[in-house]
């Protein structure tokens, strides 16, 4: 299984077992023509990027609150946040789809970004809470002794120091948002706004009926490579992030 993870992306360009005549034709096909793959990549980037940024901004405040402040019903809030990440996507998509049809949001970026927050936000809050908890509280106390307000302490001391954790969460959120399929598929029917995932899944061959595996695989590689690079570069961080969210 591990072997196949490595082997397949490399030899998937041809339908033979071995990539006999190595060519970049598939890659050319992917970007040329009217399947709008380049546009799809851009759309994916816009959607996943916005989801990540929004999630971080909103989630960081919540996570910090949950990690530091002591207040009534904290466990309930935390439980609610975790539970929301478990709802099946489709039961959220159906009503949202109808709503978005009514307010003419179909084929807009926000129609894809907003529902994506439903799984991205709990994930981020959960992760970040774990990270913030690991930071010694003396840091803010020291800052506040030096005359910072809690908000300043958060902004000037905690955020810079939490950067690694925030960064990890950003990667995980981005990967999750980049991989999102159901929402992107439901909320769009125009090529120019679909994300790369949707476009790749709907590739048709140049001759119409054949399965364009060559270009699909090439497109798949293009979609995957940024993630794989990110994963390889930051694997230690990602593992830390995943396990912080999942177990500890």
């Amino acid at each position, binding site marked *: *299984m*591990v072997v196949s*993870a490595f082997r*397949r992306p490399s030899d998937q360009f041809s*339908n033979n077992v071995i990539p006999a005549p190595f060519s970049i034709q598939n890659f050319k096909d992917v970007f040329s023509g009217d399947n709008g793959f380049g546009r799809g990549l851009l759309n994916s980037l816009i959607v996943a990027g916005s989801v990540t940024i929004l999630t971080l901004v*909103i989630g960081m*405040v*919540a996570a910090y*609150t949950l*990690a*530091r*402040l*002591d*207040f009534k*019903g*904290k*466990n309930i*809030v935390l*439980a609610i*946040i*975790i*539970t*929301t990440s*478990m709802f*099946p*996507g*489709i*039961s959220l*998509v*159906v*009503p949202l*789809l109808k*709503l978005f049809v009514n307010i003419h949001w179909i084929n807009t970026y926000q129609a894809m970004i*907003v*529902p994506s927050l*439903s799984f991205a*936000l709990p994930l981020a809050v959960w992760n970040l809470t774990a990270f913030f*908890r690991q930071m010694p509280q003396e840091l803010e*106390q020291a800052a506040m002794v030096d005359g910072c307000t*809690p908000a300043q302490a958060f902004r000037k001391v905690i955020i810079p120091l939490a950067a690694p954790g925030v960064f990890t969460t950003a990667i995980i959120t981005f*990967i999750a948002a980049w991989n999102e399929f*159901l929402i992107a*598929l*439901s909320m769009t029917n125009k090529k120019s706004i679909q994300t790369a*995932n949707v476009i*790749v*899944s709907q590739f048709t061959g140049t001759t119409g009926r054949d399965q364009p595996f060559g270009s699909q*695989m090439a497109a*798949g590689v293009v*979609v*995957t490579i940024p*993630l794989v690079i*990110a*994963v*390889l570069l930051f694997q230690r961080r990602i*593992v830390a992030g*995943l396990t912080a969210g*999942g*177990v*500890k």
Partner: protein
Amino acid sequence: MTVSAPVAERPVRKPKRQQRFDEGTGRLAAILLSPTLLVLAVVVLFPIIAALRESLFQSGQHLDANGFVVQGSQFVGLRNYTDIFKGDTGHRFWNAFYNTTFFTVVCVVLETVLGVAMALVMAKAFKGRGIVRASILVPWAIPTVISALLWKWVFQADGIFNAIIGTQVLWSTEGWQSKLSIVIADTWKTAPFIGLLVLAGLQTIPAEVYEAAKVDGANAWQTFLRITMPLVKPALLVAVLFRILDTLRIFDLPFVLVGAHKDSVETLSMLAFDEAANVRYGPAAAYATVLFVYVAVVAYLFVKILGADVIGEARAKKPGGGAKGKRRRDREAAPSIGAAAASNTGMGV
């Protein structure tokens, strides 16, 4: 005091304790948490309620009793639900229900076994652990859609898989073989994930425990059964629960690998999506609600029976983090409802 009740609470408590830096944080916390809760309310709570409402309506055009065309949504009560279970749609529903359950059970069992095995291997293999870890993360990071395409290509009639096992099975058509292809693809993608979480659990087990077992003369199997498994259980249960919930809503993989409208792989998510895509929001919402209830029931049972401590995790972590962090203050009054409720869910099982 003339202030309203919720506000009154704080000033009353205040003088009892010494002034702390996070004094009076209730309101601050509420302010800081409100964006998150607001967003979740919009994207999770509202849809759930809307789905419940929607599932009682039928949209689109109908003919009323006198043959006139009725525009817009119509209240149909529970008809969408009863329609689900009978007739042709009933067959579709039970088939999808069976498929969803089948995938969940088979995939999660396989993934758990393989994942634990992987974790054990990884815990041993210190050399090149980075590479192993990376190769395990890669399938996880590949978008499901892409991995579905990958497997679709592997399972082509003239594809690698047939070449290797020397048969001519039409994998991604219909029948048991397409089910199997989904199971294989899903396992490939997510067993590593379980492995990773279990590995994290394994690493928290101190080596002394194993040494003690060795001294007591336990063999490898006994060590695994009596020491590794119980200690890794919390991590494993959480991982398995996440996987179960994930597989119950499986959509991308069968949708891309085999395709829509295939009896042998249609899942509840796909069914609901199909209805919604055809602007039959009522039935779609009904299907989605059924799935939602199914997921909730499974999650509840899992937590209750096996005691997966997902939420208690937060509570358990709290005192730990509190040592250097919060310092749980000694409230002379009763502990907050939240803490009490959470400790119930945590300890009850």
